[in-house]
């Protein structure tokens, strides 16, 4: 059974109608091709209309769609070969942060990302995509290994935030994220970061310092989730739609404010409707971006990386 968001329902209803029409036609051996074509056209029309007018909150809903491709789905579809690597070498292996060497065609990449689960059991295992400090330390260990073997790094960001738990505090959640942010600036190899779903705050930024930071069309990226923003500013969850508007958290907003470098288009209706197309688009963007970045020397990349983030901010003097 597919999960349907409110604004997906009218489309799904028409699609069901179309399927029924086609079935009837076969069962009764009648020609419905004209009517079917008309219905198909209006479905396409409705899709375009719906998805070109999404509110910011609707994008947030899409970014969290339970059928959306997650990090390991991208890895599976993009890589010809993948060897997953585990552990931070200090405390544990964090299942909310996955990584390893993946081969795409001729190139080997270190691919790292937060991982969400699709059913109750997996969600618990993956801690809802909320890493502990071990996750950030594992990510940094893998990044430094990539640097050692001169392999480019790809990070896939999809997290509702770093885990706000007791042990996470004991083991230095803040320190782990801070160190990643600082050390990623000095990585000698190309770093490509892609927000594939949710990019919440420091938990996202902890693996999102790159030469290119890109967002999928229906991803969101900001300093706080709309719900938490609403709770703090309006003292209730009920203003999440308004908070989403105010935060300007969509790919278009973030690109417009020069806080990310580019937007990767999704299949019409969202990445969850066509894994193959969604993941192939991302794969091609990674390969093209890597080609561009490999024209630069490590020093040039580091300088430009620092310069880019250093210029973010609006002040008056």
């Amino acid at each position: 059974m597919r999960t349907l968001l409110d604004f997906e329902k009218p489309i799904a209803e028409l699609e069901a109608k179309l399927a029924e029409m086609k079935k009837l036609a076969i069962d009764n051996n009648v020609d419905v091709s004209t009517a079917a074509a008309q219905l198909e056209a209006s479905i396409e029309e409705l899709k375009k209309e719906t998805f070109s007018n999404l509110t910011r909150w609707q994008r947030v809903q899409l970014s969290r769609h339970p059928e959306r491709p997650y990090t390991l789905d991208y890895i599976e579809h993009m890589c010809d070969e993948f060897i997953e690597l585990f552990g931070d070498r200090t405390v544990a292996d964090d299942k909310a942060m996955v990584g390893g060497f993946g081969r795409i065609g001729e190139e080997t990449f270190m691919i790292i990302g937060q991982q969400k689960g699709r059913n109750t059991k997996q969600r618990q295992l993956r801690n809802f995509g909320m890493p502990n400090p071990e996750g950030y330390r594992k990510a940094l260990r893998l990044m430094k290994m990539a640097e050692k073997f001169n392999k480019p790094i790809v990070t896939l960001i999809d997290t509702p935030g770093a885990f706000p738990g007791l042990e996470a505090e004991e083991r230095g959640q803040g320190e782990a994220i801070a160190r990643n942010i600082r050390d990623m600036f000095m990585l000698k190899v190309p770093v490509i970061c892609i927000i594939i779903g949710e990019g919440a705050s420091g938990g996202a930024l902890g693996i999102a310092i790159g030469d290119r930071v890109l967002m999928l069309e229906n991803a969101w990226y900001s300093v706080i989730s709309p719900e938490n923003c609403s709770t703090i500013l309006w003292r209730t969850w009920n203003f999440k739609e308004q908070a989403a508007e105010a935060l300007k958290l969509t790919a278009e907003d973030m690109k417009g404010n020069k806080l990310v470098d580019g937007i990767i288009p999704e299949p019409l209706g969202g990445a969850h409707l066509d894994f193959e197309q969604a993941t192939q688009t991302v794969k091609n963007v990674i390969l093209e971006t890597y080609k561009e970045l490999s024209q630069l020397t490590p020093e040039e990349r580091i300088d430009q990386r620092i310069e880019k983030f250093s210029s973010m901010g609006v002040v008056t003097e």
Partner: protein
Amino acid sequence: MSWFTRKDKGILTPTEAKREAPDGLWYQCPSCKKVMHTREHRLFAWTCSSCNYHEKIGSQDYFELLFDQSRYTELDAFMSSGDPLKFEDTKRYPDRIKATEKKTGLKDAVRTAHGKMNDVEVVVAAMDFSFIGGSMGSVVGEKIARGIDYALKHKIPFLMISKSGGARMMEAGFSLMQMAKTSAKLALLAEAKIPYVSLLTDPTTGGVTASYAMLGDFNISEPGALIGFAGPRVIRETIGKDLPKGFQSAEFVLEHGFLDFIVDRKDLKDKLTALFNMLK
């Protein structure tokens, strides 16, 4: 008629309290309830002479405490916030800024200055919690970044005094990227082998903890300061039970290995300069 301005209003910062309470008034320690003269309190670097409770103080107090003869040169004193997102919650962001400026006499939540500390030339950045909870927006990030630039250019140590509830929500994505900007500059400072001391004061939480506050060569704190990434309320809601006593206190954070030492504010200046002199 109030003697104990802090107790009566509950939310006044010492800076405000002092402004309203000229010498000759009294301070009551919120921890042990001892009453002392404001002059005495100041003499003890705004700590309690009885129980050593460290009152929250602002940038002005730290500058006066640390710089020789309280002499320093402020950097970027007139920098103030833009409103890139036209943010509006219950108030328009520019209105909130203006009202806060008026209330606090500050331009934003951090001030930066350079000067001499026991004859050691340093840059100090000190945060003010009274300005929208010490939240980190573009001004905080940019001032700290330029403070680090100054330290880099003159090859002098950088001291960061954090006191913050975290991100400035009204600057959303821009606020988030200040974590990146300040950390980028600290990477350069580290590469240049210039000492960076991060003093985490009560409270230091959120995005500040997940960026510059935890990146010191030396991470230090004052006794009893609250230090954490997630705030206690959020953690309590996550785990569904009460937090152990002393959780996220400076002492707790030191025991878990994330602080180099805890320093009494009265010793701060001398201990820091002793450290800087050893590194020369």
